[in-house]
């Protein structure tokens, strides 16, 4: 079966493209991006602000189990066309990564299926590679922590 989510990142380029097909009508897919309480659910973050309009801005905040703020991100909405596109910026706070520009294009495939194309442009090819590596390094970190947990139980 073909993967529903695809990532295309050409060597040496400063952008990447994520595409995904959904078993959802276009309107529901778009709704998942615009209703703060729904965004909060699938992104697993607290939505502080989400102004879905031209010149609007957004702000997310994630806390760990102890209630400490673990992750903060914000950006501005540059363009917003319902059921078609969102153009926005994304920047993590207190992180050594520059702002990135995101083009989100929504498209109906059939009455019940839809597609999202997300093009992300970074400051440089090196910056893009860093962002690509983050889940990889977090994976190593998690494996490391798991190992540590196992070792602790053996103590």
């Amino acid at each position, binding site marked *: 079966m073909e*993967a*529903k*989510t*695809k*990532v295309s*990142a050409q*060597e040496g380029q400063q952008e990447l493209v*994520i595409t*995904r097909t*959904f*078993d*959802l*009508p276009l309107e*529901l*897919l778009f*709704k*998942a991006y615009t209703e703060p309480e*729904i965004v909060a*659910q*699938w*992104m*697993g973050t607290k939505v502080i602000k989400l102004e879905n309009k031209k010149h609007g801005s957004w702000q997310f905040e994630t806390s760990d189990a102890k209630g400490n703020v673990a992750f903060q991100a914000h950006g501005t909405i540059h363009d917003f066309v319902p059921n078609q596109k969102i153009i926005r910026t994304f920047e993590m706070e207190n992180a*050594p990564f520059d702002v990135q520009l995101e083009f989100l294009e929504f498209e109906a495939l059939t009455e019940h299926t839809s597609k*999202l194309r997300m093009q992300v442009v970074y400051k440089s090819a090196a910056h893009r*590679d*860093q962002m*690509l*590596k*983050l*889940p*990889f*390094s*977090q*994976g*190593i*970190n998690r*494996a*490391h922590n798991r*190992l*540590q947990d196992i070792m602790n139980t053996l103590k």
Partner: protein
Amino acid sequence: MNLRRDVFQAIADPTRRAILLLLATQAMTAGAIASNFNTARPTVSKHLQILTECELLGQEQNGREIYYHLNAQNMKEVADFLEPFRKMWDERFNKLEAIMEKYKTKK
């Protein structure tokens, strides 16, 4: 030589995994890497040697210093990074899909 098995052996060691993690976002000298560990400098050098031998790390001479970096130069390595990144988005989108299913039936 079975390179694949060597790679797995290389990343089975927690210190070597921690070194890979350190280098995930930036290139560093052996000294800078060693300063992150309580282990003796020669031990860290040995780990760097093993990681370099199985091509997980690359070296670059910069003046008098040698910088180590994650070997993301060839496509296979990029593909290795791509898969966890793809999976992260796939899981996120699966969640989105599952949540929106509920709205479907409500209509």
